[in-house]
């Protein structure tokens, strides 16, 4: 329901000012010097002003949020608030708080603006002082409404937690007719009962359980019979409860007249507030029967009481109950009847409103009754298993439990668990063999390999196969071959080592120019190769033939172009044609390969040309957006000068 208890305390206006100012002092920086940059000084003081404003704002916003808005809460509470605190006064107080909040905001806004133009620390400081002073003055003007709101808060927190929607019984009647004693009997509530009128000055709530649900009983202050305008606050609380809560009403009549009000007056009250009982279950409790019975009444009074029954009351008949709070006679009967009537009414209303239908659609109530004899259900497979082996002696003698074994062998503390008993090994006799943990200074477990047998088997098989293959024959021949190869390799390695040393030596001359390697002549290469026992002429071949031909032509002089009939010249022409084709292939084996290379080259060229590069080595990165052409403002017609 509503959380009236959780509204925070409202300090008096003066205290609020102190709180906010000290908070500002605590939570904002405190050190500033005139030597600081002016922007820093300004920011320092602006922060103070803004902080003060936000703190005030937070406090006020919280206040406005927490207090219930009279238009939004349940009409019962709204009316109660109106009766107890005066709706206009309440709204005015909250309105003032809201107005002050806005004023504080505006002050802060103005002064922050002004501070932007302050040019010295002193000026900033004075402006800050003025701003805070004005804020505090406007808050101090709230003194009245703040103290009023604090009172309201305290009272609201102490209001009984009445839930206007639940099942409720309301007790009403003249003062001192026994409403509170009835309440004390029926519920756990401990309401003050005194032998004078207006003992109960406000609403009280008690709770009781009936029919497995919780019921709310509201004890109201007594009502006197006079017009609504003349009623005081205490009576009005009772009236609001009667007017707004959809509850069963228990109207109390003191037939002994011990309360000081004769029966005619009490009946007159009933008739005057009758409109409030409309559409509500009504019970008339004739109380204090231990002092005077109904039958002992004079006929006039009897007639008056009977007149209450004739009251036009929404069709339902008015119920009468004779009770006595002293002897507790008839109290339960009245209570039960009241509860029943109200429950019926509520159910009826729910059915009418269609709420029940939506619920009923989702429900299904079965009519099945449980069979009397319900044997345990055992699945057939289980039954079979049991039937097959169940009879044998083995099954019946179940295996000994570890606990039983323990009991047999000396009980707890003496018996030690046999961990190897269930070990699954190839040979059961191995079970209790002692396994050393350390052997020859090694941890045995480090060398345990579960697949060792398999690996060993594999190895053995491989060895056998190799042995079978060793039909290599003579060992001597093999050895010879090996030696020959070894000698060859040794020679090669020594040469490599030598070269490495030579190179190292050459390198060690730091920074000296390295002479260019002389190209070897073809003849030298041939000679070297021949020395190594390879065919040098094969490498030299073409150059030899060419050289020879050149030598031949030199004899003929420069006449080779025109000399067409010359057989030798013809041969030269043939060879030239061949040479040209070779150059087109660029020293590549096939024409296709040459074409591919050419294609790649052209592609590369194309890219380079597109970028406008000079060559492969041209890595220049252009500045596409030079800063000097793109920076600066471009206002009205100033394209040329930036």
């Amino acid at each position, binding site marked *: 329901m509503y959380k009236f208890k959780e509204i925070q305390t409202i300090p008096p206006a003066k205290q609020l000012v*102190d709180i906010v100012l*000290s908070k500002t*002092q605590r939570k904002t920086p405190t050190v500033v010097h005139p030597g600081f940059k002016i922007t820093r000084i300004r920011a320092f003081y602006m922060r103070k002003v803004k902080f003060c404003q936000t703190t005030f704002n937070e406090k006020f916003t919280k206040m406005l949020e927490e207090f219930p808005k009279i238009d939004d809460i349940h009409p019962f509470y709204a009316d109660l608030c109106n009766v107890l605190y005066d709706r206009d006064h309440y709204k005015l107080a909250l309105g003032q708080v809201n107005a002050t909040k806005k004023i504080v905001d505006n002050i802060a806004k*103005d002064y922050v*603006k*002004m501070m932007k133009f302050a040019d010295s620390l002193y000026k900033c400081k004075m402006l800050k002082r*003025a701003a805070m002073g004005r804020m505090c003055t406007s808050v101090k003007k709230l003194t009245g409404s703040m103290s009023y709101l604090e009172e309201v808060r305290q009272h609201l927190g102490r209001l009984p937690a009445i839930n206007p929607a639940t099942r409720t019984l309301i007790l009403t009647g003249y003062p001192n007719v026994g409403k509170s004693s009835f309440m004390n009997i029926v519920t756990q509530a401990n309401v003050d009962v005194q032998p004078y009128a207006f003992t109960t000055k406000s609403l009280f709530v008690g709770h009781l359980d009936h029919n497995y649900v919780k019921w709310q009983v509201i004890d109201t202050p007594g009502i006197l019979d006079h017009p609504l305008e003349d009623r005081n606050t205490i009576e009005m609380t009772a009236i609001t409860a009667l007017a707004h809560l959809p509850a069963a009403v228990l109207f109390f009549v003191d037939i002994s007249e011990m309360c000081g009000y004769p029966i005619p007056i009490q009946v007159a009250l009933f008739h005057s507030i009758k409109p409030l009982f409309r559409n509500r279950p009504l019970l008339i409790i004739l109380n204090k029967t231990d002092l005077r019975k109904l039958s002992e009444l004079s006929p006039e009074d009897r007639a008056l009481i009977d007149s209450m029954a004739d009251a036009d009351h929404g069709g339902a008949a008015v119920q009468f109950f004779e009770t006595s709070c002293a002897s507790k006679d008839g109290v339960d009967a009245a209570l039960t009847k009241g509860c029943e009537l109200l429950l019926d009414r509520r159910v009826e209303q729910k059915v009418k409103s269609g709420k029940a239908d939506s619920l009923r659609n989702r429900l299904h109530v079965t009519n099945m009754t449980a069979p009397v004899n319900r044997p345990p259900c055992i699945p057939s497979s289980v039954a079979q298993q049991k039937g097959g082996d169940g009879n044998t002696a083995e099954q019946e003698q179940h295996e000994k439990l570890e606990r039983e074994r323990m009991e047999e062998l000396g009980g707890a503390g003496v018996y030690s668990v046999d961990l190897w008993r269930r070990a699954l090994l190839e040979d059961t006799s191995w079970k209790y063999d002692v396994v050393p943990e350390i052997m020859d200074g090694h941890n045995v477990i480090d060398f345990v390999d579960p697949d060792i047998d398999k690996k060993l088997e594999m190895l053995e098989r491989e060895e056998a196969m190799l042995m079978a293959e060793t039909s290599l024959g003579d060992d001597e021949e093999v050895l010879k071959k090996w030696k020959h190869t070894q000698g060859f390799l040794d020679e090669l390695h020594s040469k490599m080592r030598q070269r490495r040393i030579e190179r190292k030596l050459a390198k060690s001359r730091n920074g000296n120019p390295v002479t260019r390697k002389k190209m070897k002549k073809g003849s030298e290469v041939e000679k070297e190769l021949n020395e190594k026992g390879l065919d040098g002429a094969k490498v030299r071949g073409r150059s030899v033939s060419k050289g020879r031909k050149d030598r031949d032509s030199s004899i003929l002089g420069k006449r080779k172009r025109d000399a067409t009939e010359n057989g030798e010249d013809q041969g030269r022409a043939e060879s030239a044609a061949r040479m040209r084709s070779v150059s087109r292939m660029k020293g590549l084996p096939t024409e296709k390969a040459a074409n591919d290379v050419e294609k790649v080259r052209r592609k590369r060229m194309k890219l380079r040309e597109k970028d406008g590069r000079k060559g492969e080595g041209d890595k220049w990165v252009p500045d596409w957006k030079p800063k000097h052409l793109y920076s600066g403002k471009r206002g009205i017609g100033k394209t040329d000068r930036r």
Partner: protein
Amino acid sequence: MRKKKAREPKKIAKTARKLRGIKAKLFTKKRYAEKATMKKTIKAHQEKDAKTKDGDEVKPGAVPAYLLDREQTRRTKVLSNMIKQKRKEKAGKWQVPIPKVKAMTEDEMFKILRSGKRKKKAWKRVVNKISFVGDNFTRKPPKYERYIRPAALRMKKAHVTHPELKMTFCLDIVSVKKNPQSALYTTLGVMTKGTIIEVNVSELGLVTQTGKVIWAKYAQVTNNPDMDGCVNAILLV
């Protein structure tokens, strides 16, 4: 309740001992004020009971018994009411509550606003003080705008105190009549301490001797508006 009241002084003493810093200052100030009022009331109560002597002192310039009832008049000093009034008016015409003001330098008054591409030009000025700007004022184009009055420093209302009624009203400013610093400030509408402003007093319902309603009256600014963020003035009557 009775016990609570009895314990109160001990509680107060305890807090007084505990508090430090600003809180202690505030507390002692409050306590001092409370004690002062308490003492005063006690004294008032005591005086009420005590019998005081009647003033039996002999007044200076004793007179014989037969002259006691006569009122003395000093003719030389008596002036006719008319002359008195006139003199007062004449003197009062140019008399203002704040006759002298501190002179202000130009750089206190204005801030130089540099302009131009390289911020080389320095002919613009920003008015650093609170100023009054009329409703129908429009700013000149930036090229011709020498003096800038920032919107944040413009004021339309003044808190004007009526010296005889001893009441303060928040009134509209109509114009700035005279700034004692210089004529330029008067034209700019700058309000500093001692400036004479014209305020709209139609709300006060003042009437002239002939029965006409007074719309506007002069008032003198009594505070530094740029320090306080508001204009306080005293009505010149």
